[in-house]
């Protein structure tokens, strides 16, 4: 398991892995927002939590197609399926690798982008906490979507169509935490719901992903 995780991390980090792409996308989206809604700082500070959450979500989404697709193409997935490691563990590790290489950097740079969008000072800690708790769910749900579409030739758009509705609850609670935090309200309820969604998806969804992957490898 550890070897697989290290292999995935290395592949993502080294040349050709597209490691920085998600980050660059996040930056671009955030930069485009003031261009589209205008530079008034009070408007920006009001929408900043939602924009940052949406940007992080889209950056996660766009990097999903490489979670399984490359391994599918060169046959690594077939080898992994016949390995003693259960497929549930394989997809969990794939999701973990996606989270570590895509989501964690997003979480780390989000305060800087929050600064650019004039996020209120109280909001920073809650933004980071909400992203930190919510992005695991995004990675796990996304891996399920990637497993569904892995055998398809033009799976990219379909992947978005399948995964985005599944992202709705996570986005609602995550952005709510960030918004309430920025406004100085109590964040307890949405924070617990967000953590609950992450915990439940991590615990249950790998079984669905593995089942789907078995069908696709058949």
């Amino acid at each position, binding site marked *: 398991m550890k070897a697989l995780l290290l292999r995935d991390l290395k592949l993502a980090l080294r040349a050709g892995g597209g490691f920085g792409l998600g980050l660059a996308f996040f930056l671009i989206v955030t930069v485009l927002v003031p261009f589209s809604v205008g530079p008034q700082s009070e408007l920006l500070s009001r929408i900043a939590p939602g924009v940052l959450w949406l940007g992080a979500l889209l950056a996660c989404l766009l990097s999903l197609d490489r979670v399984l697709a490359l391994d599918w193409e060169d046959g690594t997935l077939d080898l992994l399926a016949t390995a003693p490691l259960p497929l549930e563990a394989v997809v969990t590790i794939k999701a973990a690798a996606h989270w570590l290489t895509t989501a964690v950097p997003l979480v780390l740079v989000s305060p800087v982008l929050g600064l650019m969008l004039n996020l209120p000072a109280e909001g920073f800690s809650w933004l980071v906490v909400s992203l930190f708790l919510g992005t695991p769910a995004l990675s796990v749900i996304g891996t399920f979507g990637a497993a569904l*579409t892995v055998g398809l030739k033009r*799976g990219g758009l379909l992947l978005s*169509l399948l995964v985005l*509705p599944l992202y*709705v*609850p996570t986005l609602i609670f995550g952005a709510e935490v960030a918004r309430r935090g920025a406004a100085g309200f109590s964040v307890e309820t949405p924070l617990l719901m967000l953590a609950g969604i992450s915990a439940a998806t991590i615990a249950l*969804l790998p079984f669905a992903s593995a089942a789907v992957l078995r069908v696709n490898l058949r």
Partner: protein
Amino acid sequence: MSIWKFANPKTFLTTTERLLPAVWALAAVLCVVGLIWGFFFTPDDFRQGASVKIMFVHVPSAFIAINAWFMMLVASLIWVIRRHHVSALAAKAAAPVGVIMTLIALITGALWGHQIWGTWWVWDPRLTSFLVLFLFYLGYVALWAAIEDPDTAADLTSILCLVGSVFAVLSRYAVLFWNQGLHQGASLSLDKEENVADVFSTPLYVCMAGFGCLFLALVLYRTGTEIRARRVRALMLRERMVA
């Protein structure tokens, strides 16, 4: 006689062929009677005027839209557990009907909202969760369309339906938390004292029964079509092998 008898495509086809004319006729009669009754023989509401009559299309289509997904969920479960092809094809056949019903509910709701609330659309929990349901339907239909091998498609879409159901319910409660609504609560229920007045509710029940029969007829008909399409495919493959 058990319901599993209809897992045999041939039994299913012969039975539905005998049943279908009756179901179509029942759907037509109930829809025509219910809609005409609702549109022309109910009084105008004292505040909403004639626009209350959108209800006779809006409520039944919303009712079918939700229950169509539920039927797909049951059919997917049957496919996952017992692997009856008819069941998978029935789920496939129901999905586009559900899409249209959701769309009808959303559009009639927008027309009604424009009259009464003064806006086409608000981000109300009910409206929003219906929109999310619509997106789930689209994803489901798109996944069926994208996969060539029918068994793989049936497997993948049924798992998507199961996972999607959980997330659809989750979204329903999440949007409830996210925003308080403009849409009224349930006005028809079996366990409440106060419901819509009988003058309105009786034709409404007729309309709902009519839409239900229409849904049943469409699903049976479309499932039959899918079975025949599958047969044609098998025959063509066999012919190519012989040639």
